[in-house]
């Protein structure tokens, strides 16, 4: 066989070597940037079933893009055809070159430019008998069809089911142009070779034949292959600095995640890996409610990741409501909320525990410890409703923050002050355990989430009051009746997406109200979130108005929620009443209304309890 080399392979080879060296260097950096426990997790997991699971997930997500398919079929097809089609081209091209050259080990460019070295079977026959040439043409067609969707998406993104598409940075735009050129030029180059030799299958063969009708393609064979190689090479050289770094990084992220590595300040390597694994597909832009309200402001997660990666974070880290809608929609599964939290600087603010030192706490030696939360104290009717429910259920309960002066620590954590939040957590953990209660009930999803996620409370179950009320209704402990009103349930971010409690509140709403008009969609943010200190009132109101518009599309009589903060935010502008699920339950308690017995409170020396009895 003749020599398998031509100078035109050089641009490709240089680009490919560059990216190979970069990738190996990056993997080493990412691994060394992990904390000791995370490194241990990888070593322990590598020879287990987790590796197999990671391989399966890589095929499903990096190649087939199943999650994107679940969102929109056309968008999924676009991603799948580009990724999976290209993968098949590489794989089949490799097999073909191995079979025909007879060499198992050969330079990588041989298989990439195989059609140049071996023009394949002669033209009309190859169309009817499917061989390698046929399959290679078919996969090239698959990629080209996906590419046409990508071009359409740039100009009319609605066609592929996206309201907006990512605004590219300059270097991304160069890389995108190179990527778009790769496959059409490959088609032309292969067709030239096929046309000059009278070979090829249905795509390259017919196009080559078509070319040869007008001119002699052999003079254009080398120039077209040179162009193809140059475009490939420049794409590879640009890749590490653009969003296309996700192509090699995403599988690494999947493997690390499967072994149990997660986002933490101790593992900067994992953080860097995550920044590279974002493909900037723009699905997070569509889910962001702020994109509707402030279209010009690029604070959505893909832009955020881009600015963190290129170290351009100014104050945009505070301009997010942290509702988590983008995180649950992200097809790559990037842990966006912890990533954002980590970008908010630690300000080292003082000793939070000293505020608790002077407070006497109530609620010892009772089975249930009730923690209202500071937001609930701004809506005392929720506390009164809980008192009625506790009384009807005959529960033995104590009220921890009866004076409204306790904080769970999550607001601090959301603002990036993890150290201060830890001080509060330690104080509360000690208090909760000392109370001897076995059940901790809170009315605030924000508190619930942090109790559940961060607190270490052995022998104590944490419930949000929706779960508690749901159980009471289930066990017939409280006699509820159905109201004639139609209700819509607003799902608080921290309870639904944040803590995975979807069923219980919906079941209560179905029990208490004549109809449940909740739209079948991902829960919305009320705009009142504690996550975004930098967002002003006007923007928050606009977010709330948008959410109300979507929620009240079915003309409900009342809006039910289970978060005091959502309730406060909505009731400021809602046309229909907004009530908490506890209030709805207390209202529906039939028969003679039992007055809640006055809970005995120790006298607080600086403020009277506001919300008791």
């Amino acid at each position, binding site marked *: 066989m003749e020599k398998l080399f031509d100078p035109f392979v050089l641009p490709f080879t240089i680009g490919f070597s560059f990216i190979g060296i970069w990738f190996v260097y990056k993997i080493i950096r990412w691994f060394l940037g992990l904390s000791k426990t995370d490194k241990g997790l990888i070593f322990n997991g590598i020879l287990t079933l987790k590796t197999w699971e990671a391989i399966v997930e890589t095929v499903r997500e990096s190649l087939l893009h199943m999650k994107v398919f679940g969102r929109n079929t056309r968008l999924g097809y676009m991603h799948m055809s580009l990724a999976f089609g290209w993968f098949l081209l590489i794989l089949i091209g490799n097999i073909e070159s191995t079979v025909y050259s007879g060499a198992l080990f050969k330079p990588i460019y041989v298989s990439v430019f195989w059609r140049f070295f071996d023009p394949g079977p002669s033209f009309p026959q190859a169309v009817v008998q499917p061989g390698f040439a046929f399959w290679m043409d078919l996969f090239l067609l698959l990629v080209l069809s996906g590419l046409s969707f990508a071009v359409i998406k740039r100009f009319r993104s609605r066609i592929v089911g996206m309201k907006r598409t990512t605004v590219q940075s300059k270097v991304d735009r160069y890389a995108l142009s190179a990527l778009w050129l790769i496959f059409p030029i490959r088609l032309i180059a292969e067709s030239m070779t096929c046309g000059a030799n009278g070979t090829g299958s249905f795509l390259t063969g017919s196009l080559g034949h078509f070319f040869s009708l007008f001119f002699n393609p052999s003079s254009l064979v080398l120039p077209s292959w040179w162009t193809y190689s140059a475009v490939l090479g420049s794409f590879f050289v640009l890749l590490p600095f653009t969003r296309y770094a996700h192509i090699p990084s995403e599988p690494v992220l999947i493997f690390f995640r499967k072994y149990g590595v997660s986002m933490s300040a101790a593992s900067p390597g994992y953080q860097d890996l995550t920044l590279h694994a974002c493909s900037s597909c723009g699905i997070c832009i569509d889910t962001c409610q702020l994109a509707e309200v402030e279209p010009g402001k690029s604070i959505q997660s893909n832009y955020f990741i881009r600015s963190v990666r290129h170290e351009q974070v100014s104050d945009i880290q*505070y301009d997010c409501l942290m509702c988590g809608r983008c995180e649950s929609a992200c097809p790559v599964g990037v842990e966006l909320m912890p990533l954002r939290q980590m970008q908010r*600087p630690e300000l080292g*603010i003082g000793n939070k525990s*000293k*505020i608790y030192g002077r407070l006497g706490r109530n609620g010892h030696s009772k089975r249930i410890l009730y923690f209202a939360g*500071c937001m609930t104290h701004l809506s005392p009717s929720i506390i009164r409703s809980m008192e009625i429910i506790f009384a009807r259920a005959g529960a033995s309960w104590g009220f921890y923050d009866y004076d409204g002066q306790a904080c769970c620590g999550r*607001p601090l954590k959301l*603002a990036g002050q993890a150290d201060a939040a830890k001080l509060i957590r330690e104080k509360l953990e000690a208090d909760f355990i000392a109370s001897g209660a076995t059940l901790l009930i809170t009315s605030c999803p924000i508190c619930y989430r942090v109790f559940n996620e961060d607190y270490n409370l052995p022998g104590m179950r944490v419930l949000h009051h929706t779960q508690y009320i749901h159980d009471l209704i289930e066990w017939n402990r409280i006699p509820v009746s159905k109201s004639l009103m139609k209700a819509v349930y607003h799902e608080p971010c921290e309870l639904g997406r944040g803590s995975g409690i979807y069923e219980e509140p919906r079941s209560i709403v179905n029990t208490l109200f004549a109809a449940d008009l909740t739209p079948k969609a991902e829960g919305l943010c009320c705009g009142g979130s504690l996550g975004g200190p930098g967002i*002003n*009132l006007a923007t928050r109101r606009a977010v709330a108005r948008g959410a109300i518009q979507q929620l009240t599309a079915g003309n409900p009589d009342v809006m039910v929620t289970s978060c005091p903060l959502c309730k406060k935010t909505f009731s400021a502008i809602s046309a229909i009443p907004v009530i908490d699920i506890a209030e709805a339950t207390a209202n529906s308690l039939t028969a003679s209304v039992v007055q809640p017995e006055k809970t005995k409170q120790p006298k607080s020396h600086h403020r009277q309890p506001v919300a008791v009895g």
Partner: protein
Amino acid sequence: MKSKFGFEIKEGRQIDLDSVDIQMVQLIAESVGSWKACFNCGSCSATCPAGVNLRSCLLKLSTLGELTTLDTCFLCGKCFLVCPRGISTRYLILQIMKKQMEYGKAV
């Protein structure tokens, strides 16, 4: 310095513009525009579960250029919910804390 003519000048009432450094106020007001709307009603101080007197802190900051320590703040955001002027108080507090950290001016 008592005068015979029935009037006097008290030292303490003289305004010395050089003694007040308003740079800090300007820096903070730049990043939190909504602060301009504050009319010092004190709703924030009244609702605060941590006992922070935000009103007095902001008054001191705007008139004396003095940064009060806000160490006990939980950043719970109740002051934002009750604020009649819709001022982003959490952001304001975060900015004050940030400036304290950067310039080490905590009192």
